[in-house]
């Protein structure tokens, strides 16, 4: 495996509330290499966005990082102060949010957004920043960028706005871009274009992506590796070929279960009976056990650890036993 850009080790995020301490993220570990796309999937509320927010120090109050480490290259970033993280945001880690319609300031031109962001991070004058902004728009596939640069966000379509948002995230050539459901708000046809763009940026620039999504089809097409999250934990993580093709965790199996009726149908999120427990009512042991067809006694008593080979790990007692036996 090539150079690691981000590694998250045993990350824990807690919310102090009146009802007690909620554990939003529990013992999350993963890493992302240069130019790699790590997909992060899971039902709504699994903690995908929270993981991205923790990396960027954007956890909403009163949440806080209660344990673990986050390393960017070999620099520890989870304990940085405000100026420290501000030097990282946008400069070394870019971030994209779900809704391109609301991600841009309606009163500023796209060019103002870009030049402003470029000049915050790079020592360029106004003219140089504008030239760079036009290049960026070109690179993300905005036609006629030298003209379009002076348009306002509302003059772009949804897909084009998401391209602009991506260009903004790339202003200072960050090593990593965290994309939180970047296509969820877009039309299906536009989604495919954005996916292609992300792939292109990975191969041409070597930018790594943490791609948070609901869409298994998108993961299968875009990601190199995938982490499946459930109730604030990583259930399974590994290469896409393994986790999508031959998932081990019963929850991952449920997620990947292809809809059999149509040919060539991409694997889709399939409804698993029941719903994910809320943080206030996490069951003991494996938090998936109330919905798991293969649950055993031990599953109700002890939480499984994330174990396995370096490139494919799973948190499930079924496989812990195998390992012990082997």
């Amino acid at each position: 495996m090539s150079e690691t850009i981000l590694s998250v080790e045993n990350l824990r995020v807690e919310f102090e509330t009146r009802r007690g301490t909620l554990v939003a993220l529990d013992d999350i570990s993963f890493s992302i290499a240069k130019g790699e796309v790590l997909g992060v999937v899971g039902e709504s509320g699994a903690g995908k966005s929270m993981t991205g927010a923790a990396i960027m120090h954007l956890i909403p109050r009163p949440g806080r990082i209660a344990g673990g480490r986050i390393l960017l290259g070999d620099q520890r970033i989870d304990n940085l102060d405000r100026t420290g993280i501000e030097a990282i945001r946008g400069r070394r880690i870019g971030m994209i949010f779900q809704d391109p319609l609301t991600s841009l300031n309606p009163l500023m031109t796209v060019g103002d957004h870009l030049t402003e962001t470029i000049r915050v991070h790079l020592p360029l004058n106004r003219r140089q920043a504008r030239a760079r902004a036009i290049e960026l728009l070109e690179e993300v596939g905005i036609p006629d960028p030298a003209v379009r640069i002076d348009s306002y966000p509302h003059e772009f379509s949804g897909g084009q706005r998401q391209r602009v948002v991506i260009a903004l995230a790339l202003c200072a050539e960050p090593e990593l871009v965290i994309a939180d459901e970047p296509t969820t708000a877009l039309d299906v046809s536009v989604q495919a274009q954005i996916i292609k763009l992300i792939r292109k940026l990975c191969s041409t620039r070597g930018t790594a992506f943490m791609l948070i999504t609901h869409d298994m089809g998108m993961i299968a097409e875009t990601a190199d590796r995938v982490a499946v999250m459930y109730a604030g934990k990583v259930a399974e993580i590994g290469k896409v070929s393994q986790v999508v093709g031959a998932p081990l965790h019963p929850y991952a199996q449920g997620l990947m279960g292809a809809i059999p009726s149509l040919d060539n149908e991409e694997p889709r999120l399939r409804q698993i009976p029941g719903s994910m427990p809320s943080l206030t009512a996490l069951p003991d042991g494996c938090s998936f056990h109330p919905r798991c067809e293969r649950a055993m006694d031990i599953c109700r008593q002890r939480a499984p650890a994330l174990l396995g080979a370096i490139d494919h790990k799973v948190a499930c007692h079924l496989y812990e036993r195998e390992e012990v036996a082997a």
Partner: protein
Amino acid sequence: MIALVIRRLLQSLAVMLVVSLLAFVMFRYAGDPVNQMVGAETTAAERQAVRESLGLDQPTLVQFARYVGRVVTLDFGVSYQFRQPVTKLLAERLSATLELSFVAALISLFAGIVLGVYSALNPRGRISSLLQSVSLVGVSLPTFLIGILLIYIFSVSLGWLPAFGRNGLIPVTENWSTGLLTIEGWKSLFLPAITLGLFQMTLIMRLVRSEMLEVLRTDFIKFGVARGLPRARLYFRHALKNTLVPVITVVGLQIGSIIAFSIITETVFQWPGMGLLFLQAVQNVDIPIISTYLLLIALLFVTVNLIVDLIYNFIDPRLKDAAS
């Protein structure tokens, strides 16, 4: 944009025409203008002569057209009380009211925005919650009470500022004397301006605060943080501008009401402005002054509205496109 300006101008004109009609009806039919002008011993023939000379025997429509014609040339008739042209009377008082309103508006705008932004940026701070409760008092206390309170504190108890009147005037033109060029003038302006502006200030402050809190929660601010933009830039370039878009409308209308509501403040402080003149006119049924004041206030609201509309369109590019 030009089409929009023209359309708005025409709309304003229509509004003014309707108000003129109201003013005309009041002028013409509230009491008999001839009776007001002539003495009790005038004969019926003489009255008829006056009536004809004033054109009061003509059809109503013609009279209205003439009225509008006179209004356009700033001829509003003669005050019954003072036996002087209304135009001259109002012009003499205009400087007092406009200076008072202008300073009050500036104070309320400046303080309102600064305090509103401050309490939006420090929503949990002690000063912010203090401001919130004090502003609640400011909104709910009637203007005359605030005026009397201020007079009591700063004039009667402390003796720092004059309790009433307009002093330190320097004539600029025939009709315009300004109090803005002397310390004395500012001293007498200060209390009335605060009194007049306080309500608007608290209103603007609360509005700016809530709008800004709203804007700070939006995705584009979050995305700005995630892009590494400095706080100051996010707050004052991105958030403030978006906050001010809805605030402008309210503020514009408030400026109109500041002038309209200066009546009360002018009365409390015996400030020789149009409001005081209007109040005297009401007491003496001086219809020419009343109807002219009505026209003037309407013109003011219409103008302010027009300007606000255009500024709004200028700031918000989405509206500019919708209009063209």
